[in-house]
């Protein structure tokens, strides 16, 4: 009963937020939602299956740019297919999966850190394509993102819409779309992790030979999870493009891949909740520093040139957070919540009853 109450409370809070928060925080929240979708995908691959990927940013780029290319009308030197935008979004996710599929013969045969080294290739390939395939990607300047239009409802500022005296612009409308996408992505991943595939994936991570002996097709699973995780990456990319309203190639570099790895480690490896918590932490940290950096020593206002920029300060902090978490909180922030709940039985936290095993729980 109480769990239903908590869920209803969370839902109500989520619905109320866009009526009160200003655009800056809505955008930050949307970034966090898109990051959470991507991090869930990476956690399926890295946390649950033990396959390191440095190439997650590549699949985000594929998703974002494919959506723009499919949805945009061709103008001047820039190409485009002008498809209906929901179809473009679905095709973009499918294309990310296909890109993952092309790489999956490699992903299926390599394990752990070796896959990490091989996926570095994707980052450099991606950067090269983004900068040089001008007619598709817009090169150095990137491209404007056409707003999504679902059954005649446009996710942009254009046709004015006022709900209960609050003007509903692009961010307010996307807020609900992002929430729905994240919920669907999280539920699907939870289903995968709790069922037969999830057990097989964890066994591959913990003991590859044992998994093979028990009849798990190891290479096929590795390849399959890689494709699934790249589709999550593509979906996160589409969402990100819609929020940014412009795609820029610089963004999809190696640092973005490292951000995603930091997210799943800080939040907790191998679970959906961990991915979401980590994504919120890593994507809100720079925004918090941008907003309240003036109050902190050393951190400079953006563009002023003296001191550290908020983005750098945030990287310093979350680099340190990764090391601190692996040293002192092996289960990540989610593990911290679980142990808090065990110590304080009276405290009810909205978490699943049986946590997914983290790598640290094995012998």
């Amino acid at each position, binding site marked *: 009963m109480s769990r239903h109450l908590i869920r209803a409370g969370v839902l109500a809070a989520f619905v109320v937020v866009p009526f009160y928060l200003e655009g800056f925080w809505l955008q930050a929240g949307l970034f966090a939602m898109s990051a959470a979708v991507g991090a869930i995908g990476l956690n399926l691959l890295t946390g649950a299956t033990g396959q390191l990927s440095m190439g997650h940013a590549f699949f985000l780029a594929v998703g974002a740019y494919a959506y723009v290319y499919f949805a945009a009308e061709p103008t001047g030197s820039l190409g485009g297919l002008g498809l209906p935008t929901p179809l473009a979004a679905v095709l973009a996710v499918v294309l990310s999966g296909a890109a993952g599929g092309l790489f999956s013969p490699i992903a299926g045969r390599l394990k*752990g850190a070796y896959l990490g080294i091989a996926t570095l290739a994707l980052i*450099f390939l991606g950067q090269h394509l983004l900068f*040089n395939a001008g007619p598709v990607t817009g090169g150095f300047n990137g491209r404007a993102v056409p707003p999504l239009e679902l059954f005649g409802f446009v996710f942009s500022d254009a046709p004015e819409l006022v709900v209960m005296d609050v003007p509903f612009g692009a961010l307010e409308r996307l807020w609900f779309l992002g929430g729905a996408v994240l919920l669907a992505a999280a539920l699907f991943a939870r289903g995968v992790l709790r069922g037969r595939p999830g057990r097989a994936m964890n066994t591959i*991570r913990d003991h590859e030979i044992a998994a093979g002996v028990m009849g798990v097709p190891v290479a096929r699973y590795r390849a399959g999870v890689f494709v699934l995780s790249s589709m999550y990456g593509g979906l996160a990319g589409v969402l990100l493009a819609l929020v940014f309203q412009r795609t820029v190639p610089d963004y999809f570099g190696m640092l973005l891949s*490292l951000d995603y790895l930091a997210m799943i*480690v800080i939040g907790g490896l191998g679970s959906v909740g961990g991915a979401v918590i980590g994504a919120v932490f890593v994507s809100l940290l720079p925004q918090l520093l941008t907003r309240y950096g003036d109050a902190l020593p050393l951190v400079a206002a953006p563009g002023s040139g003296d001191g550290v920029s908020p983005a750098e300060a945030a990287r*310093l902090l979350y680099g340190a957070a*990764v*090391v601190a978490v692996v*040293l002192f909180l092996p289960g990540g922030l989610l593990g911290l919540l679980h142990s808090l709940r065990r110590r304080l039985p009276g405290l009810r936290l909205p978490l699943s009853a049986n946590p997914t095993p983290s790598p640290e729980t094995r012998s």
Partner: protein
Amino acid sequence: MFGQQLLEGLGAGAGYAALALALVLTYRFTGIVNFAQGELAMLATYVAWQLVVSGMPYWVALPVTVALAFAAGVLTERLVIRRLESGAGEVTLVVTTIGLYVLVNALATLVWTAALRAFPSPFPDSPPGLAALAAAGVAGAVLGALALVVRRTGLGLVMRAVAADARSARLSGVRVGRVLALGWGAAAAVGALSGVLLAPTLFLEPSMMTGVLVYAFAAATLGGFDSALGAVAGGLAVGVTETLAGTYLGFVGADLKIAVPLVIVVAVLLLRPQGLFGSAPVERA
């Protein structure tokens, strides 16, 4: 022209070989693929630059830097890696080094800013080909000394014992913890050498070693991740291939040079995962 390119390739290859050797040392002793190796080298290179700029002669600054890097490597092992050893999965270990990567990179940006800086060459008056050859010579001398220590001394014997089987070594009375710290220190020192060797051509900036790390991964993969000889041979091979491909294959050019090591990595991992000189792992369930 060809000879010139070959020399330049060998010079760059010496730098890659040194970083690849650092990766192999870390991997052999602790079983960790250290993604932060390049950043530790970058940090050491900044220290060397700071020393030279503040008036220390180049040939004094170099050993001081290498010694400081050694200490930093030992400290990293003591403070971070050792606390993780028991029970942490491979992904956790690797991601820890990625956390170190981000941390060190941000730290260097904080202290020295992201501006490009010129790094003094040890041989300012000689033609570039000769300087590259001399750099390769310096690297070769240090690597040779390291090989002598590992092959011919009691310390080397202990190190090899720990690398082969840490548990048996501990049972025979070896202080395994110290040897592991020593391994990380040696890796950091060799990595620092790589940074200093490559800095005159790459220029000094916080992300200077990102590309080099990719080359070093390629070198270590090509040679075999558990073979020191393989790392050196792989580094030289990658350096020469990359330089020649950039010059003679029109479609590669300067822009796609980074693709060369990545193609090598993927090809080796698919065709001969243990590398040219490495040993294939045998697992018993």
